[in-house]
């Protein structure tokens, strides 16, 4: 297990290094770093001083070393717009994005699992066909447009939910969370649902495929031959087997949910990391862009690692193999 963990960590480190190189080349080689890293309002003297301060007159590999060292110290530059460390700026917005992504994941599971289970157990019923047709729609619908339509129906015409913003927040662990207040929850409902649409479809499809495959397995037939109740066969013998792939995918999807929250946050003016990055791209606040990219790469690698470990804990077969290595 330890060997396995160390190997996975080394792999992760390698990917982080590769990505930092890509971001570095993106910023320093493709674009003009002076233009990217120094405020466009700076005059000639300020510019030259900055070039020297940033070490832009050094050879490229030395610049990369400096970039890496600074990044390791948590220094990813200062925002031109807010004049604050870029990393701090992003970390402030992180709770908003995280709670949105978790909300979407919960939506996806509580809506997707039962529907997928039903569609898998009764593949030929009319309701199952409706479920599957809707899931195709869920894959095809452009997220941002659905978000607009949600606002139109629930905020403009029905007036049930607030259209944009985060609402009241409560404090937990020194961070601001919307899910702690009723007003915050009302603000969160639509964006979370919007963000979860794609994932609901995904969970439905995975669950249905898993149920259909598992139902054909001998061990399910054997469970029935033991005289177990249909409920026990479905929820213990079938469901536990399906949970493994679904949990894996939903876990892996957490990363892409955070990435796709860029769109949802823009639609609902949700003040998270995604909204910040779009605003930053629009005003060319590049230190924030670089910091965001590096942070999300790290996050992705961490999520992949955690999912792998969770997976090995859920499936006894994987657990044994990794013990052996």
């Amino acid at each position, binding site marked *: 297990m330890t060997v396995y963990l160390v190997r996975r960590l080394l792999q992760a480190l390698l990917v982080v290094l590769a990505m930092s190189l890509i971001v570095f080349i993106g910023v320093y080689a493709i674009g003009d770093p002076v233009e990217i890293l120094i405020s466009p309002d700076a005059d000639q003297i300020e510019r030259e001083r900055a070039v020297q301060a940033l070490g832009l007159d050094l050879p490229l590999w030395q610049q990369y070393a400096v970039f890496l060292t600074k990044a390791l110290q948590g220094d990813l530059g200062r925002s031109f717009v807010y004049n604050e460390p870029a990393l701090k700026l992003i970390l402030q917005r992180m709770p908003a994005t995280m709670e949105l992504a978790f909300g979407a994941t919960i939506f996806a599971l509580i809506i997707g699992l039962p529907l997928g289970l039903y569609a898998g157990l009764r593949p030929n019923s009319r309701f199952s066909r409706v479920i599957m047709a809707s899931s195709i729609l869920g894959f095809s619908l452009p997220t941002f447009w659905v978000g607009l339509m949600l606002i139109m129906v629930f905020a403009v015409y029905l007036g049930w939910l607030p259209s944009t913003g985060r609402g009241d927040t409560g404090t937990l662990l020194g961070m601001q969370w919307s899910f702690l207040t009723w007003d915050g929850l009302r603000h969160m409902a639509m964006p979370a649902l919007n963000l979860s649409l794609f994932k609901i479809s995904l969970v439905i499809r995975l669950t249905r495929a898993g149920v259909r495959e598992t139902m054909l397995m*001998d061990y399910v037939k054997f469970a029935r031959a033991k005289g177990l109740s249909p409920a026990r066969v479905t929820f213990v013998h079938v469901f536990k087997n399906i949970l493994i792939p679904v949990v894996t995918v939903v876990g892996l999807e957490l990363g892409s949910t955070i990435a796709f929250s860029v769109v949802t946050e823009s639609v609902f003016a949700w003040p998270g990391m995604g909204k910040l990055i779009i605003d930053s791209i629009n005003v060319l606040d590049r230190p924030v862009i670089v910091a965001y990219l590096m942070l999300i790469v790290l996050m992705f690698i961490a999520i992949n690692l955690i999912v792998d470990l969770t997976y090995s804990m859920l499936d006894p*077969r994987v657990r044994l193999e990794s013990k052996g290595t």
Partner: protein
Amino acid sequence: MNMTAPTLEVRDLKTHFFTRAGVVKAVDGVSFSVGRGKVMGLVGESGSGKSVTGFSIIGLVDPPGRIAGGSILFQGRDLAKLSEEEMRDLRGNRIAMIFQDPMMTLNPVLRIDTQMIETVLAHKKVSKEEARQRARDTLGMVGIPSPDERLKAYPHQFSGGMRQRVAIAIALLHEPQLIIADEPTTALDVTIQGQILAEVQKLCATTGTSMIWITHDLSVVAGLADDIAVMYAGRIVEKGVVGEVLDRPLHPYTHGLIGSVPSRNKRGEALRQIPGMTPSLLNLPPGCAFRSRCPRASEACLTEPLLAEILPGREARCVHPHLEAPEAA
């Protein structure tokens, strides 16, 4: 209860699959009976309907298949007419089943104790501790060493033979009157196969459990079964006491099957084989289903022969049975 009445009597069982391409008559008019404490060997090639017969008895035929006719009398009750609830009460309790592939019959994500205790609790109102006790005893009975530790294991930690023993233990938890064994030793090594056969034989003899042993392996049937029924294309083509059928097969198909067992042939002599393949059960042509592969086929085979008593106690479904003296072996 009448002690001489058979445990199970299947009469004219028809199990059909209603597919989009047409009706597949997987089991088409099968009759046989199994006496108390007896082992019945149900023999046939894959696709002959022998497994479907087993699933029909235990009531686990999945749509689009269903029992289309006939009766299954188990201790005087017709299983074909029972509700799903009543069937579930019998399954795993009075009638148990063992499957072919021990690698696939145990749920990989549940521990052995979970899978055994749930079976006990499905039919008996006992405490979890009593159920565990019962599970432990049964595991010991089928020859699994240190059952206490093994209960906490997952299926993948067992070898194939051990897994099949666990599956047999699960089948024995409620001391059923009938066990349907669907090729339970096919996937195992020959030595393990022998051990398990010996165990099963002993268990049947001591508990009075009847058994239907589904297989394509005649040598297994020869050593284990009391009676034998040979199936071909959804029908029984020959049945009788095991020794007589194997020594003097009447139906050309049985004859061919025995001829293709290597041990029964002389060294140096070419193995005999049955030419051709099992016919598709979809749109089976009228007449004897075996006639296209049969060396004895004639015009008369175009009409379907009935299962008739050809010799005393010997039934076969053939117009040209092997009545000549058995070949010198």
